[in-house]
């Protein structure tokens, strides 16, 4: 901690010395400059008249959207069931694909750290960095619109997430148990089944429920690109400007998300 001396000889405590302060200010200046440039670009691309008009538009949409059209609910049960199925089945499917990838990616179980591990890590990053809506867009173009495309889209998106968390859990296991099982003369598969799997089981259950919760959120919007579920209803209501129906759908989605999060929190609380 630097100390500077006042003119009258008193010592003043400072957090940083002059050079540190200067370099900090230079950093802040650069950051502000970048931010202002970005902001200017956004500002150029914006029609400010619409923005100043926004409160009136928002009030207008709000007045049309209320009250929600409750009678539309009986047309929503089917899509809601599809949405739930999409979330659940895709989580199951994703776990089937994520487990081998995780074992290939973990440093202590991978067959070859030089060749196999980078491939597994690439699968994890690639599936994780592509949003499920983009996967859905791609799969709708390939296998046609419908629940199946949405299901596959979420499943692909979930592989990276599940595999990443799972391989981190595998790398953190207690090696002593693995050694003990190996010492009994167990085969490679027996070591995995009795030495590693019991140790990662709680993490595995936690991850799957956590991902299921996220997948419910994701599956509610996939319909926007034609991949089935309640998003399809949302899209058609938006296209026909049926705002009371939009309100009802948003309420249903919100409830589904809250219920999903509650279930997931309860299950994870019971496991951990």
């Amino acid at each position, binding site marked *: 901690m630097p100390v500077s001396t006042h003119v009258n000889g008193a010592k003043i405590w400072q957090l940083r010395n002059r050079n540190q302060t200067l370099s900090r200010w230079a950093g802040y200046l650069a*950051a502000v400059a*970048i*931010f202002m440039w*970005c*902001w200017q*670009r*956004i500002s150029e*691309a*914006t*029609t400010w008249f*619409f*923005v100043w008009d*926004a409160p009136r*538009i*928002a009030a207008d*949409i709000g007045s049309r959207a209320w009250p929600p059209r409750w009678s539309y609910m009986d047309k929503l049960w089917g899509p809601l*069931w*599809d949405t739930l*199925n999409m979330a*659940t*089945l895709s989580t*199951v499917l994703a776990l089937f694909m994520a487990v081998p990838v995780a074992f290939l990616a973990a440093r202590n179980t991978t067959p070859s750290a030089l060749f196999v591990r980078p491939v597994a890590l690439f699968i994890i*990053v*690639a599936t*994780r*960095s*592509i*949003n499920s*809506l*983009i996967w859905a*867009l*791609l799969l709708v*173009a*390939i*296998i*046609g619109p*419908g*629940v*199946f495309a949405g*299901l596959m889209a979420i499943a692909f998106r979930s592989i990276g997430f599940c595999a990443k968390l799972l391989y981190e859990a595998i790398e953190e296991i207690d090696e002593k148990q693995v050694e003990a099982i190996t010492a009994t003369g167990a085969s490679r598969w027996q070591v995995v089944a*009795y030495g590693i799997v019991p140790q990662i*089981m709680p993490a595995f259950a936690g991850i799957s429920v956590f991902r299921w919760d996220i997948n419910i*959120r*994701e599956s*509610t*919007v996939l319909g*926007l*690109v034609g991949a089935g579920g309640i998003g399809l209803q*949302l899209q058609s209501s*938006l296209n026909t400007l049926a705002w009371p129906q939009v309100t009802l759908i*948003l309420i249903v*989605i*919100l409830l589904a*998300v*809250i219920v999903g999060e509650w279930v997931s929190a309860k299950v994870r609380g019971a496991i951990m």
Partner: protein
Amino acid sequence: MTAVTLDDRLGRSWQKPHLIANPALRWGLFIGALVYVVLAVGSIDINWSRVAEGLSRGWAFVTAFFNPDFVSRGGDIFDGIVESVIITITSTVVGIAISVPIGLGAARNIAPLPVYLVCRGIVALSRALNEIIVAILLVAIFGFGPLAGFLTLSFATIGFMSKLLAEDIEEMSKVQAEAIRATGSSWLQWINYGVQPQVMPRLIGLSMYRLDINFRESAVLGLVGAGGIGATLNTAFDRYEFDTAAAILLIIIVTVMALEYLSGIIRAKVQ
């Protein structure tokens, strides 16, 4: 004389214990899950002829990944990526700037109860609404363009950062904060010297992580007209220009990988 085997002397051979000890619960859960899966799979109608038809297109996409076309739509791709990056940077900065006070308010050991409840309410609202849905509403209100995307991602960032920041503050060591308090510091000084140093490493790590998430999300906001690379990507898919789509996806993947690598370095440095 009957043969006495080793198993008789030792008793029953060892069996792996079941995951769920209660047999009724075990079989109930198993049968319930089976019935659900059968019902769920039954309610999905897969048009296999359409799938078979599409497989050739799927193969075309896979091959397109090996010779992506960066050039023929190069201008559009460049503009889209720049817009995505701009949305990412601004929304992360603004989102974090707003989420710091809300995070302070949502920590029970710092904030009084009314402030706590209000801040937790904001966090819950922001987390419950999907980004795409927020983007649709904001596009309807503010018109097409990156402003809607910027506002959407700032809103989403607030929920994410405030929640994690508040949890971190709630777990901090009381001793340090109390020591600063005891010097007669004002509230602001107390936060600045007692609380902030304890949560700063985590805050920086989370900011980098959120930057990464915001970039990924900004790539899809274009689908609903909120600016960024998504609109270009959507057009490429609609016109079956898989080589351009593959180029865009590769750019996204490489950027995300670079960001992840960078955030790893920064986090290792601050922690």
